[in-house]
């Protein structure tokens, strides 16, 4: 169990990383309860690795919103692995399960954290998209705050001109973070707001411009076209921009999250995902599915309501958060 061992040492012995992992552990308490807790429970109840065992394992994974396809693949792989290693006892299968899960979460990628693509010189533009009610504006507020603290000059563009109160909401966040908000009146053309945002950000020598957009369901073709237009305006004004297109996903969303990721990618070439509301209710299984089926990196996760609860996604810390109980149990056993 090489990889998990490495994780364990890393997160229990190194002080710096321990702090990060604590945050994940805390934020994902409930995720963990449903995930590793259930797997542990399953292993305790079954002695033999048989069909029933696999069926229940399937259940645990599906209940965590891991995509149905992903789960089916995973179970098939596990069955093969169990056969190959000739595992009969459930306690032995545990390692195989966590290794396989980690493999998917982790991918072939060695890079642990996918940082935002912020240019050293000149203006970087971040476009934020997503369906209604996932937490786009809130995430932007938190992100602006963090970038400001890193010493960047940030400007926000209030591109959600549709929803009642959306501009005001962004303004409140702008005040809290102490950054400028470029806005038009409600109902105006979002592309025009973004255009003005770029002009303002340039003239104010800003480092980062974050563009908010109205939430839209991905099957509304005209609204998706509007989004493509916003992106085209950015492309035209600044070569190489937008440097990031962040898709905000609600972690409580089910299989539809895959549709969202797919369609928004088609319209705007999404470069990263912000997974919100991962604290408390969600299980984050959808991260697995998105990784497995779409291969878009998760860049940020929302682990709570506080400003610094928006964390850079650290695949290792996330995996550790999920399996913390399992790992610690093993430490005790040793």
């Amino acid at each position, binding site marked *: 169990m090489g990889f998990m061992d490495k994780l364990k040492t890393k997160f229990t012995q190194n002080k710096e990383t321990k702090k990060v992992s604590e945050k994940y552990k805390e934020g994902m308490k409930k995720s963990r309860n449903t995930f590793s807790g259930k797997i542990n429970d399953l292993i305790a109840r079954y002695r033999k690795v048989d069909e029933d065992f696999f069926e229940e394992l399937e259940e645990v994974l599906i209940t965590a919103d891991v995509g149905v396809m992903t789960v089916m693949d995973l179970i098939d792989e596990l069955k093969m692995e169990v056969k190959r290693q000739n595992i009969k006892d459930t306690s032995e299968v545990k390692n195989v399960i966590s290794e396989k899960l980690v493999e998917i979460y982790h991918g072939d990628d060695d890079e642990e954290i996918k940082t935002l693509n912020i240019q050293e010189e000149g203006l970087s533009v971040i476009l934020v998209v997503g369906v209604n009610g996932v937490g786009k504006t809130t995430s932007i507020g938190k992100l602006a705050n963090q970038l400001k603290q890193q010493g960047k000059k940030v400007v926000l563009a209030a591109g959600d001109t549709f929803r009642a*109160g959306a501009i005001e*909401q962004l303004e*409140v966040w702008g005040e809290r973070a102490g950054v400028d908000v470029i806005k038009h009146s409600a109902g105006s053309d979002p592309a025009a707001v973004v255009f003005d945002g770029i002009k303002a950000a340039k003239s104010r020598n800003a480092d980062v411009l974050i563009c908010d957009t109205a939430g839209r369901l991905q099957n509304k073709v005209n609204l998706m076209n509007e989004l493509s237009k916003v992106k085209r305006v950015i492309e035209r004004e600044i070569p190489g921009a937008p440097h990031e297109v962040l898709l905000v996903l609600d972690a409580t969303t089910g299989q*539809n999250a895959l549709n969202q990721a797919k369609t928004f990618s088609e319209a705007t070439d999404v470069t990263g995902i912000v997974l919100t509301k991962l604290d*408390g209710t969600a299980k984050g299984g959808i991260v697995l599915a998105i990784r497995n089926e779409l291969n878009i990196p998760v860049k940020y996760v929302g682990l709570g309501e506080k400003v610094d609860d928006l964390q850079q996604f650290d695949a290792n810390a996330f995996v550790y958060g999920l399996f913390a109980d399992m790992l610690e149990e093993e430490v005790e056993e040793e």
Partner: protein
Amino acid sequence: MAFEGLADRLQSTMKKITGKGKVSEQDVKEMTREVRLALLEADVNFKVVKDLIKRIKERAVGQEVMESLTPGQQVIKVVKEELTNLMGGEQSKIAVSDRPPTIIMMVGLQGAGKTTTTGKLANHLRKKHNRSPLLVACDVYRPAAINQLETLGQQLSMPVFSMGTEANPVDIATKAIEKAKEEHNDYVIIDTAGRLHVDTDLMDELQQIKENVKPDEIFLVVDAMTGQDAVNVAESFNEQLDITGVVLTKLDGDTRGGAALSIKAVTDKSIKFAGMGEKLDQLEPFHPERMASRILGMGDVLSLIEKAQANVDEKQAKELEEKMRTMSFTFDDFLEQMGQVRNMGPLDELINMIPGVNKMKGLKNAQIDEKQLSQVEAIIQSMTKKERQEPGIINASRKKRIAKGSGTTVSQVNRLLKQFNEMKKMMKQMTNMQKGKKGKGFNLPFM
């Protein structure tokens, strides 16, 4: 949509069985597996699926299916019946208190759509029940939430009660009731802040509001896209507040909406309304049977037919069919058709309700620009009566005049004429096809 509907899934399983003459228990097992996967992909909760599958299996292994000539369809029928049963009857009634105002409390997770639904519900109460509601802004946490409700209030010209973000939500709610009594509002809709069902402090706050204002209805607002967790959310809100009904939002998306089934199964509270769009009049009564079809990926034919029926005069439709057959369809008829179809609502919405649309390449992302339709209308309206009857007579100078009159270009006029001719050809083919098939497939006048 990423996944095929149940009907498609079963079809492939059925292929293996057809020709066998008899359906074995193994076959049924395979079919129920497909059903199970389809339900799980639709986000129906795992436990709910398990129970359902058990019941479906029992019925399927019984005579009902085994002896049927079309076991695949029979299975779908059984599944659909079970789903519809589980979701219960239609229930869009709202309580009326004998001592007004009637108080409705909106609760739910962040981003479910509570505030928007509050506005929609107020609009519904006024339009359908002739009531005058007071909206109450109790979300003091999310930035600009009060502002959002106030804007909605302005759009609807309805009063909104708020006390800023410093006040205690319990006080706001209590004072709002007094205000409603003074102003003779017969309904009070309280918009509360979104919260996680595991957040004990905020859940306590809701309980306090409940105790203080004694609401007649507590509606849980749930995002139709919610995954497996919908069960836990609904269960704990119900346990702590004893909700009286559910409003399912964002159903105009392409989610299957299995959450609906899960919620009904664990709380046994009926889903009363469905949010079908961003506009304030897009709140509709919830139809369990249609939801069952949708979860199974069978399209929302019923809604479509109903819409067509409500907007299309049957006599006109018959006349039209006759015209289609005899090829005497003119631009006048075309204009009339367009008017009827547009009365039914946004076209892309209609197209998505047709079963199998996901499989038709051209239609899947059919994008219908309403602006273009207006242009077409303008072009036709710029034609003389004779031109509309006999498009053949439209020559170059007539085209120029039509383009000028409609503010379009000659090439746009040309395009429409070409499309019209193609449509006529297609209609002929379609009517022939239908004759051959003995009226199979459905017969919507505008197709």
